[in-house]
Each structure stands twice: as structure tokens, then as C-alpha cells.
């Protein structure tokens, strides 16, 4: 702080508190809605203070799901989302770190070509290639499977670049010393590069886990069987019961449960999250 301006300090805090409230407000309302009975939404305006139906809403959605909407129990959708996010995160990191290792520590024909092929994935987000990708996955018989859900999202140019950049900053002597001591490339990778990359791996994991968790369009297309539904797409199914208003308390209980895991990851691993975000994007 360069000077003492009490009025400006108060204003700063007021703006920040307003910002925090603005950001939290929709989630608070959703939580409140999830604690009321269905009758609270028949007329008038949505309630602003929590009700006493919380246990029932959550227990019902977690335990049995919603039969009319055809969604499985929420715990199953949470498990599906969790595995999808973990497979995507681990997969992206695994294939990217080996690619970066190959590109940095070897010289071989078509090295530039391989680099550009990986680079191209940056320009092909799943949204612009949905239909042909869907056709490929269908032809491979991977609809309604974890492979179909995750593989088309797993290639990662950003993670490859991040590891490449990190490896370039490591001193050459590290690798020369390892070679003098008789370590081959795989031993060097496993015993030296991997341990050195552990912070980067953790930071990337946080970002990629969230990326996998919030996927919506792709699971919507490739999963038609209930037991593969992810939580994020399950919400849409819950709202889409034809010809009537959604059962708001149940929808909002599911919304809160869908937000909770990735938000907790951000809150509890904030430092890794920020590191991952800043480094994958630059």
C-alpha cells in the first residue's frame, strides 16, 4: 500500500464483499432450494432461507435417483464422473510426459512432424468435431464405455508443451551424469525426470480433473445407458421431464452434489490449482 486512504480502503472491502456475494449468491439459492419440500415451489417466489427437508432431498437423490426422469442414483453418477475425470487427467499426463520426453531427449526423423501433429489438437476442440468423432467411436464399438467417454478427450497439446518447457529448463549435466553412471533413457526418466516433475504433475492433475469433471456435450452423446451417466449430464435429464416443472428441490440437490467435488478440489488445492492454471495457459 503506497498511501493511507481510509475511505478508499472501506470502498475496496465493500466492492470485494459485493463481489464475493455476487459469486456465491446463485449457489446459496440452489442450496436453499434443495432443503425445501416440493410444495415450496408451487407458487410465489423461491424461498430465501433454508427449509427442513434437506436430509430427505439428498438421501433420495443419492440413494435411489429419479425414476420418472430415468436417472440412476446420484452416487453412481458421481462415481462415473469421478472415474471419467481421473482417467482423463491421468491419461493426459501419462501420454504427454512421455511425448515431451521423446521430443526433448531424442533426435529422430519426423520429430517436427510429431510435434506439429500434437500441436494441431489445440485447434480441434471436441465441439467442432462432434459428429465425425461420434462416428469413429461408434464404429470402434466404444459407445457406452469408459474408453469412449475418455479417449477422444485425452490428447493434450498444452500438457505436452508444459512438460517440454519444464524439461528444457533442467540442466544438461543431469542427463550426462546419469549417462556416465550407466543409466539408460527409461531409468533416467523413471528415477530422475518423474520425481523432478512431481509438482507439475500434481498441478496439471488438478486442472485436468476439473476439465474432465465439467465435460457435458461429449458424455451426452456417447452415453445412452443409465449406468454410464455422469452427474453433469444427469442434471439435464432431471430437468427435461416433459410437460411439467422440474422438481426443484431434487434438481438443486443434484446441482449442489455435482458442484461439490471439483469446488472442494479448487479450495483445498488452491496453490496447485493456480500453478496449473497459469502454467497450462501461457
Amino acid at each position, binding site marked *: 500500500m*503506497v*498511501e493511507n486512504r481510509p475511505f478508499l*480502503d472501506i470502498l475496496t*472491502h465493500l*466492492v*470485494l464483499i459485493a*463481489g464475493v456475494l455476487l*459469486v456465491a449468491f*446463485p449457489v446459496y439459492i440452489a442450496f436453499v432450494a434443495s432443503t425445501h419440500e416440493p410444495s415450496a415451489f408451487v407458487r*410465489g417466489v*423461491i424461498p430465501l432461507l433454508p427449509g427442513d427437508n434437506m436430509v430427505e432431498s439428498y438421501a433420495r437423490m443419492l440413494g435411489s435417483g429419479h425414476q420418472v426422469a430415468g436417472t440412476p442414483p446420484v452416487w453412481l453418477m458421481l462415481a462415473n464422473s469421478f472415474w471419467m475425470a481421473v482417467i482423463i487427467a491421468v491419461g493426459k499426463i501419462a*501420454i504427454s510426459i*512421455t*511425448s515431451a520426453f*521423446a521430443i526433448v531427449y*531424442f*533426435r*529422430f526423423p519426423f520429430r517436427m512432424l*510429431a510435434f506439429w501433429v*500434437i500441436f*494441431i*489438437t489445440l*485447434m480441434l*476442440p471436441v*465441439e*467442432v*468435431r*462432434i*459428429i*465425425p*468423432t461420434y462416428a*469413429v*467411436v461408434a464404429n470402434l464399438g466404444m459407445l457406452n464405455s469408459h474408453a469412449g467417454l475418455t479417449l477422444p478427450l485425452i*490428447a493434450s497439446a498444452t500438457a505436452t508443451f508444459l512438460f517440454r*518447457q519444464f524439461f*528444457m529448463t533442467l540442466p*544438461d549435466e543431469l*542427463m*550426462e551424469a546419469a*549417462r556416465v553412471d550407466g543409466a539408460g*533413457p527409461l531409468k*533416467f526418466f523413471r528415477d530422475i525426470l518423474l520425481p523432478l516433475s512431481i509438482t507439475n504433475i500434481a498441478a496439471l492433475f488438478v486442472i485436468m480433473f*476439473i476439465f474432465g*469433471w*465439467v465435460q457435458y*456435450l461429449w458424455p451426452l452423446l456417447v452415453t445412452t445407458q443409465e449406468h454410464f451417466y455422469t452427474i*453433469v449430464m444427469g442434471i*439435464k435429464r432431471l*430437468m427435461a421431464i416433459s410437460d411439467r*416443472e422440474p422438481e426443484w428441490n431434487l434438481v438443486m440437490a443434484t*446441482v449442489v452434489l*455435482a458442484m461439490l467435488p*471439483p*469446488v472442494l478440489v*479448487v479450495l483445498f488445492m*488452491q496453490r496447485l*490449482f493456480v500453478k496449473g492454471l*497459469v502454467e497450462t*495457459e*501461457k
Partner: protein
Amino acid sequence: MQTKRSIFHNRWLPYALLAPQLAITIVFFIWPASQAVKSSFEREDPFGFRTSFVWFENYTRILADPSYLNALGRTAVFSVSVTVLSMGLALLLAVCVDRVLRTRRLYTTLLVWPYAVAPVVAGVLWWFLFNPTIGLLPYILDGFGIDWNHRVNGTQAMILVTIAAAWKQISYNFLFFLAGLQSIPASLTEAASIDGAGPAKRFWTILFPLLSPTTFFLLLINVNYVMFETFGVIDATTSGGPNQATMTLVYKVYTDGVAGLNIGSSSAQSVLLMGIVILLTFIQFRYVERRVNY
């Protein structure tokens, strides 16, 4: 492109290390993209028996189609409003957090978590708040004599999706603006303040110009976000309606291709979208990445 000064020598290992990434890239990225390019030049008969090569007819057709041009315009309006709204708020909050000392971490924590909220969930949250029958905000707006119903009013539908999409993006912009502000040396603001420049003057003459690389980078990222990742927001709130008022380019690819099964037109739209992404990526790497050594 650089490698290390000393390298390993192995004929097949580098290929084996690259194989998984390349296989996935080719099977799920490049092959589908090339299929999209191929079918953008073809037309299928209504029964799907025959496809014929039609040169650029799909392209000329969509570029002359008022509903495509409408989606293009809507996407532009949507992109600009979300970007301005979320970046403006994020910059304000970042400047404020940069001013406080003791509570900085607390405020940061309380502001960053929406990053982890799925776009479709953001859509559902705001859709609930703006629900014309029981929503809180239409009730308040009614007190001001505004009749809110985004199911029939296109402008209100656009406002709804803009707010939902911007709300989710504030945390991201905030983090990058804060990082940008903290990398500006304090001596600059101190010197200006000794010369008698007040907080507003310091912001506009020192902080804001020095933030311009961050701002430019965020502009590109936000446009990218609005164009591609807001599919969930729109699908949860308005489904492109009413009367195509919130139909973005990505949503149109989806409705024409998946729901309408018009593969030729949908593929041509995909290819045009790829063109836009390539352009954005090119700008990003040409003008933003120069500061970073790859």
C-alpha cells in the same frame, strides 16, 4: 526447435514414447476432422444411400442462409458481452484484492471457486434464479415494472445466457489479472504516488497499460470460451431459443448435425468453426506467445 545438447541414442524408443499420444490424436482428432472436411463437400440423399460430391455448395448455402448469419451475429454479440462483463468485473475485483494485504488470500479463495463449476451447472443456477414463474429476479424486476420472460423475449434470453456464462468466467479472469497486477513492480506506483498521482490516475496511466499483455491474452481466451465452452450454458437455459435468439455457432452445429441430421451443412459449419479456432490460435501464438520461450 531445440533439443538438449546431449541426447539419448535409441532407434525405436522415441517412437514408442510418442505412440499413445499420436495414435489418439490421429484416430480421434485428425481423422474425424478430415472426415468433417470431406463431408462438407458432399451431399447425402434423404435416405442416406448415396453421397455425391457437390464442391462448395454446402458452404455457399450456409453463407447465404439467414439462420446461419443470424447465429454468426448472435455469437458475436454474445462473445463481446460476456467478455466485457466478466473481464470488467474481474479487473475491478483484482485491483481491489491487490490493494488489500491481510485478507488477500481469503478473498482470492472466495472468488476463484466458480472455475470448477460446469458451464451447464452455471446455466441451471441462473435459469432457476430467472425462472419466470417462481424465480427471485423476475419477482424483483416486476417491482420495477419489467416483465421478465426469457422464454418469449429474445433480448432477455440473451441477457440470461450472458450473465450465466460471464459469472462462471469471472474467477478465471480474476486470477490472471491478479497475477498480472502482482508482477508490476511496486516501485512504479510508489514513484507515481510521490509525484502526486491519485489512485485513479495511477490505475489508468500505469497499471492498466502495463496489464495490456494480460488483457489481450484474456480477450482471446474469453472469446474462445464463449464460442466453444458455453454449449452447456445454452443447452441448460434456452436451447438456442426463443426464435433462435441465443443460437450460437457451436449450438447450431449440434442442432443441425445431431438433431437435424443434416451432415453436409453441419460439417461445413464445423470446418468454418475450425477456421475460427485456427485463426484465434494463430493470433495467440503470434502475438501473445512471443514473450514465452518455447
